[in-house]
């Protein structure tokens, strides 16, 4: 059976060229960047190269790239590190109501230490309205965090506008963006957008798992959360993941090579699926239209069918998708994003996510639609009574 992988927002296939490069760095150029000998120098050079590549993409300085273990660590560092550094300036943190758990749970954690966390509501389209930020931006705000692209619906947030407002009304505050679903899909120059901190994860754009980075604008006040041998200028101790960093940079380079054509292709696939789904009975699409949606994500609700059952039915045809917010763990819990959007309760457990990458084809979409068309009537006959 042919595998149709439509869960690229959960993770992507590591590019074979990247995997080969990582293998070489792991078995041949295996040095520790801290070693004084030749092997160490060689490894350090690889990391410097990687930073150069990433900095070119972000139009920033290589010193502004901090390697981490991935999106979750980057978000944790951005939020906890900012709170630690600015705790004497203020205690208010603003996040959107649709953040990934890596942001939302970290902010919750800080409430235990006296920080006040404010959640920005979203419209029915899942998008934050800048006016609502304006209402809560007081001078004691130390951090505003808003994702670039929502992982569940693909909704694109007005981060530039929110960043501008933040810097105008709360000059002490840092502006953080979780760009895990956006990097590799959009050309992002954080410096020009007013972004101080930005989280990126490698495995979302065909890079290896277990590595990511946090963009930290020069001069941003932030404290480390991991201490030890003082690696990466003391911001994140721990032997540097040389193959990971280099592999991620190579994957980024490949992603940004001809980005516009690739995204146009993916957008066309998503639209093909959207149109096909809307022809099926009782299907609603939760992903916004046009420029408000990221190219690769489509969220849809199948009334009367449990998401998990639909997922396994498609799985039987070799099609991999995601049920609701299942990308964070395998625990079925109602999606905070959909709740914040005001999606009715019965629809929460009937919502699935399709997500694309450059490797998907029109046949993938057509076969998925055919499988749905064939299986939906059967699945709808048997619902809990």
């Amino acid at each position: 059976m042919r595998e149709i992988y439509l869960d690229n927002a959960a993770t992507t296939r590591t590019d074979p060229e990247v995997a080969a490069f990582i293998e070489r760095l792991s078995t041949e150029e295996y040095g520790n960047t801290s070693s004084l000998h030749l092997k160490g120098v060689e490894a350090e050079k690889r990391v410097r190269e990687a930073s150069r590549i990433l900095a070119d993409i972000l139009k920033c300085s290589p010193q502004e790239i901090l390697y981490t273990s991935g999106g979750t660590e980057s978000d944790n560092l951005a939020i906890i590190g900012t709170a630690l550094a600015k705790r004497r300036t203020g205690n208010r943190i603003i996040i959107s109501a649709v953040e990934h758990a890596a942001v939302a749970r970290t902010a919750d954690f800080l409430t235990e230490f006296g920080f006040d966390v404010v959640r920005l509501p979203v419209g029915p389209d899942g998008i934050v309205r800048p006016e609502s930020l304006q209402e809560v931006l007081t001078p004691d705000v130390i951090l505003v965090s808003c994702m670039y692209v929502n992982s569940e619906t693909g909704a694109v947030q007005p981060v530039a506008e929110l960043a501008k407002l933040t810097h105008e009304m709360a000059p002490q505050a840092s502006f953080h963006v979780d760009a895990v679903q956006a990097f590799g899909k959009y050309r992002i120059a954080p410096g020009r957008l007013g972004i101080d901190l930005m989280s990126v994860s490698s495995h979302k754009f065909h890079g290896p798992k277990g590595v990511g980075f946090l963009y930290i604008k020069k001069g941003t006040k932030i404290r480390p959360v991991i201490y030890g041998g003082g690696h990466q200028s003391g911001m994140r101790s721990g032997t540097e993941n040389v193959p990971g960093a280099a592999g991620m940079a190579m994957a980024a380079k490949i992603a940004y090579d001809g980005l516009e054509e690739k995204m146009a292709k993916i957008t066309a696939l998503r639209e093909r699926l959207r149109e096909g789904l809307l022809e099926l009975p009782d299907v609603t699409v939760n992903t916004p239209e046009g420029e408000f949606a990221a190219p690769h994500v489509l969220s849809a609700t199948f009334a009367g069918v449990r998401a998990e059952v639909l997922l396994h039915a498609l799985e039987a045809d070799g099609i991999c998708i995601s049920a609701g917010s299942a990308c964070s763990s395998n625990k079925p819990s109602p999606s905070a994003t959909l709740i914040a959007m005001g999606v009715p309760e019965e629809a929460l457990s009937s919502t699935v996510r399709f997500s694309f990458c450059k490797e998907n084809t029109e046949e993938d979409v057509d076969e998925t639609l055919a499988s749905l068309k064939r299986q939906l009537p059967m699945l709808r006959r048997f619902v809990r009574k």
Partner: protein
Amino acid sequence: MVYEEFLIKYAEIGIKGKNRYVFEDALVRQIRQAVKPLPGEFTVFKTNGRIYLKASGYDYEDLIEALQRVFGIAYICPMVRVDDPAFENIADAASAYLKEVVPEGCTFKVEARRSVKSYPMHSMELAAALGEVILQRVPGMRVDVHHPVVTLHVEVREGGVSLYAKEIPGPGGMPVGSNGKSMLLLSGGIDSPVAGYMIAKRGVKIDAVYFHAPPYTSERAKQKVVDLACQVARYAGPIPLSVVNFTDIQLAIYEKCPHDQLTIIMRRMMMRIAERIAENSGCLGLITGESIGQVASQTIPSLTATNEVCAMPVFRPLIGFDKNEIIDVAQKIGTFETSIQPYEDCCTIFVAKHPVTKPNLKSIRKSETHLDDVIEEMLDKAVETAEVIWCEPAP
């Protein structure tokens, strides 16, 4: 101290009369199975109505842990060996051993046995003489022949003398395989693995059956059941798990029978299938994790309704257990953490909002007639297409 020999004491086997050797042989086999995956050299042998384990190059904690999962073992006694049976040698070894393993100043007695009747001292003489030596050499020890804290056992056998004072409790029960084989209906829940464990403890070998309903139940739910079977196999030995595809039958019941009877009819179908697979594989009974009144399908009328469809005896070892008592055992045998993983099984997917709690047998039988034209074929197919997964003991 490195022990080279262990005396394995068993409890109930001792009263089995002429069949005793059957149980002893089963126990020897189970002990061999249990030590097989461990690094080291092991020999298990039976002599003079006792079972011994010789061991070298092994890890003590790992060995004891493995033996504590072998049903039929009452006590595990690590022994010290003295090759030359001269009294002075025994006396030296006994005092050195007690100094190491016994708290200072406790009461003791010595019990001696000799299977070598040519030994120059009688058992009583030997015990008394050793007692005296110990009183002299081990500081603070006092004799108490009625309620001693420690009993030093001395066994004079062909080729040497063995000493032991420590008795590490085993799991009790009877060796698996000494009481035939039964089929466990294994779901992903907390109860059924415990039921399997308890019946295995009575010496019954376990086969298992799981009802899978794709796409309503996931691959992960199936993997969870395999994991549970492997956990139970740590006690019961390798378990062949039959995975029955139950979707068609479940959908047929759903379409054609009243919804408040869904669960009962589904369970009756499960029992029918389980019994057929059990017959095919030489099982003598079925095992379920039911407990009176726990859920609607486990009231006495419901149990009567599910019981009706099979001729084989159905063992329900948890029948009088409270949920908390079941959880205690599940935690002890290490199945609890796996059982509470949140994957739906086919019992939870199709459950009615208000299932019957007092099913009427006539009414259930009548509802089942709606399936008459298809059900035989479906049951046959379910039995024939069952996938057997061999579940080896989890490490």
